[in-house]
């Protein structure tokens, strides 16, 4: 083996060490394949990453919290630094939570980072899911990964619920009481399930310990495994991409993993972490020392769950008082429908949506190119309908606060929600459908007639017309011959290089304007290029006017 050093090879010592490693592990090939992997570039592809990074932050901050938290319901008397609660009976769980906030250096910051990261985790999962839904990224072959994503969302909600129960303050105890009632409301097995979970009647003395082990071990382990599977499938199936020049069903156009994509991804991690840290320091969240210890006989007005459970609280508030009494004196409690059934139905429909759409459209092909929401109006409208339903439920989860702040009757808010969750979704469907069609038509119109330049010309006949900039070759009537290909159509002159790129430099220009001009001509962009073009080719600038007065000449549109 030649050991001569050429200037292009890495330093000999590193090179030798790398060879030693590869002789043992044989990783050079897989490593090169990984570094060369191409990732498409679009801002919306970062939403899932935000969820992933929030989860990493949750693991880090949560581990810190476990060092101090004690999941015990044994009673003790608070003697810590926070004066208003001194001498009050409370559980060890609440006392140790107060300890994290008051007696651990930086503990309050970490706890608030943990809470903010949890809110961000669920939020980014939901927005990521919406992106996948509205662009059709769940279609074959990615139905499995969609299903995994829905399961991850449900697990994230369970993580949230088990997590915000742990401090055992008045608010989380109230939430726990409602959870207990929901479990009791399940027909036939409700009381048995409650006895299995709570080890007896509400509240018992094991539930916090059980929620704790769910929250710190079982659920995170499952989530971690599913995230690994989610990413493995993503790498195996490769990322979807939006339609565009050179992009087909059989390729991926974008950046290679190393160094550009890896750099951006790492940067995003730090930005997400930084944002959570700044929020955790600046914006107080769940100051449970103000709520006091849990007592089944006490509650605060305006008790609200974290945002992601709000829709279930709303559905529970809206659902009418309909107990179903069965023969034999059995009852299906009204509480069962808006909690177990609604949530179960919503997530089941969500999980099965790829199969449902496959069935209804008969589209069994594999798809790697994404769709613009406007091009699939039915799906987009279904999504808008579901979002509207969710939105009404979510808003109703805070209807007492809205009623209070805006001085509206509480009962009127409840009736608004009851009627709204039935009437508004179909309206959302119809409106969205019309908007989709309108956007589609506008795309076609621009392709046919060109971009509106805003330049008005007067014809010799005295008629005024607006000059349009065609996007491609035109036929004898001046109609564009480009067909719509699922990619965004430019709608403004600047998007097709109508203006020269700005010269860089904040205080003073740091580029030569002539260089920018030359670059624009080289790339055939903007007026500079067109004018240079004209000087070479045309010679009769009077015919139809100069481009700087509104684009190329064109017949009036008919």
């Amino acid at each position, binding site marked *: *083996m*030649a050991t001569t050093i050429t200037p292009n090879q890495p330093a000999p010592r590193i090179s030798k060490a790398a060879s030693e490693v590869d002789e043992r592990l044989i990783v050079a*090939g897989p490593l*090169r394949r990984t570094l*060369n992997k*191409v990732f498409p570039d679009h801002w919306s592809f970062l939403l899932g990453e935000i969820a992933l990074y929030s989860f990493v932050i949750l693991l880090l901050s949560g581990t810190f919290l476990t060092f101090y938290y004690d999941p015990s319901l044994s009673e003790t008397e608070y003697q810590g630094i926070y*004066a208003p609660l001194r001498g009050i009976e409370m559980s060890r769980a609440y006392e140790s939570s107060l300890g994290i906030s*008051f*007696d651990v*250096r*930086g503990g*309050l*910051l970490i706890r608030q980072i943990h809470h903010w990261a949890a809110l961000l985790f669920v939020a980014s999962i939901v927005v990521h899911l919406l992106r996948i839904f509205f662009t059709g990224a769940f279609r074959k072959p990615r139905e499995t990964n969609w299903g995994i994503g829905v399961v991850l969302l449900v697990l994230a909600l369970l993580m949230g619920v088990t997590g915000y129960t742990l401090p055992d303050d008045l608010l989380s105890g*109230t939430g726990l009481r*409602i959870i*207990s009632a929901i479990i009791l*409301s*399940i027909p036939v097995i*409700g009381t048995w399930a409650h*006895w*299995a979970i709570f080890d*007896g*009647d509400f509240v018992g003395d094991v539930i916090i310990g059980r929620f704790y082990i769910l929250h710190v071990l079982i659920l995170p382990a499952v989530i971690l495994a599913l995230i690994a599977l989610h990413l493995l499938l993503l790498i195996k199936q*490769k990322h979807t991409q939006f339609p565009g020049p*050179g992009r087909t069903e*059989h*390729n*991926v*156009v974008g*950046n*290679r993993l190393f*160094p*550009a994509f890896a750099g*951006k991804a*790492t940067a995003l991690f*730090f*930005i997400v972490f*930084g944002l959570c840290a*700044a929020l955790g*320091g600046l914006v107080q969240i769940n100051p449970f020392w103000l709520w006091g210890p849990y*007592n*089944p*006989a*006490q*509650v*605060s007005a305006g*008790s609200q769950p974290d945002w992601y459970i709000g829709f279930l609280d709303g559905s529970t508030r809206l659902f009418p*008082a309909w*107990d179903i009494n069965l023969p*034999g004196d*059995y*009852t299906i*409690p*009204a*509480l069962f429908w808006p909690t177990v059934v609604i949530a179960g139905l919503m997530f089941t429909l969500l999980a099965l949506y790829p199969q449902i759409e496959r069935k209804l459209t008969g589209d069994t092909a594999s798809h790697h190119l994404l769709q613009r929401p406007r091009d699939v109006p039915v799906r987009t409208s279904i999504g808008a309908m579901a979002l509207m339903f969710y939105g009404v439920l979510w808003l109703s989860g805070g209807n*007492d606060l809205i009623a209070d702040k805006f001085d509206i009757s*509480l009962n009127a808010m409840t009736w608004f929600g009851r009627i709204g969750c039935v009437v508004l979704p179909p309206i959302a469907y119809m409106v969205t459908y019309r908007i989709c069609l309108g956007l589609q038509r506008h795309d076609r119109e621009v392709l046919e007639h060109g971009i509106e330049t805003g330049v008005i010309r007067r014809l010799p006949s005295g008629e005024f017309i607006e000059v349009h900039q065609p996007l491609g070759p035109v036929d004898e009537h001046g109609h564009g011959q480009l067909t719509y290909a699922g990619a965004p159509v430019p709608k403004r002159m600047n998007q097709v290089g109508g203006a020269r790129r700005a010269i*860089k*430099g904040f205080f003073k220009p740091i*580029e030569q304007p002539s260089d920018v001009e030359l670059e624009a001509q080289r790339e055939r962009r903007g007026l500079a290029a067109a004018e240079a073009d004209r000087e070479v080719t045309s010679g009769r600038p009077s015919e139809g006017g100069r481009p700087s007065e509104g684009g190329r000449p064109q017949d009036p549109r008919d």
Partner: protein
Amino acid sequence: MSKDERAGSRPDDEAGPLHGGPDEDYTPEQLATMDREELNRLGARYDGVEVLHVDPPPAPGSALEKQAERQVSLAFGIAGLFALAFAVVYFGSGWFLPTWQWGSDDNGWSAFYTPFIGVCMGGALLFLGVGMVLFVKKLLPHETAVQDKHDGSHFDRTTTAATLMGGVDRVGFPRRKMIGRSLGFAGGALGLVLIAPIGGLIKNPNKGNPLGTTEWAEGIRLVRLDGSPIRPGDQEPGSLETVFPAVPGGNLAADAATMLIRLRPEQMSRLQPRQGQSDFGYGDYVAYSKICTHAGCPVSLYEQETSRILCPCHQSQFDVIQGAKPVFGPATRPLPELPITLDDEGYFVARSDYIEAVGPTYWNRERI
């Protein structure tokens, strides 16, 4: 290739044709003549990646590059300063800086401790991220690469299926039915063993009717949170007081909390107790369970003008003068009424436990 001289190797023992990468096509001598960029492109092509177009970064030494470098370094520098400030405040508090510990009576340094270290930590991380974004955007070449996407191959499917089915044939389960069945039996029974420990969680919720009973019983006094008993004259007409059974732990019992309400005269005149419960009250006092019959929250908000009690969780409303019947919201059942009377010393006591289950509805509530 030098001769293999390891013990146990035979002269004809050579690596097969599929050994390693395309080392046959590209000899070390060939590769040595290529520069790094060529090797980079070659490896990419071998992985199905074609680099279509590279927008070069700003020219080395140009004003554009210097500006970008300044911006990136500034961001990294600010990140470092924030991190240092974090360390100084974090460790310095209580050492050469005032203490960080925050009591509710103190709004000086310690009240700003958490916001300050949060801003420092967030600033350090944010500016690190921003610096990296600037670096990638302004100083790296913008590369447009295209990678082929492979569909599954028919060859792979066919040969894998043959391998699998060949294995199944050799094991012979389709034919050896007895082994298959006995293995199924053993597996099922073992599964039972594995899930059996979960059976330890199962308890009978109907034994002793815990859901239908509370701590209240005949002669148990109604006491306030601080344990003091109540006489009829203690409350103003129209007021509500939360009372607990005078038993140990009664103030924390999940289902025993009760509202003792003294009605105003005009409410008394319109009082319509539930059927068979007209003697549950005492004088102008009535006592209802505080636990909402919907989801178990304590109903707490009493509006005496309308005689309504509102549950703050899901806004069920109960009418006190109609036997706490639900008049709005998701609750379906009235709040159970506690029968009360006075004992020999003139304090309120319960005449019995609630005559129905308090709290949320469940499947067999009516049967117990």
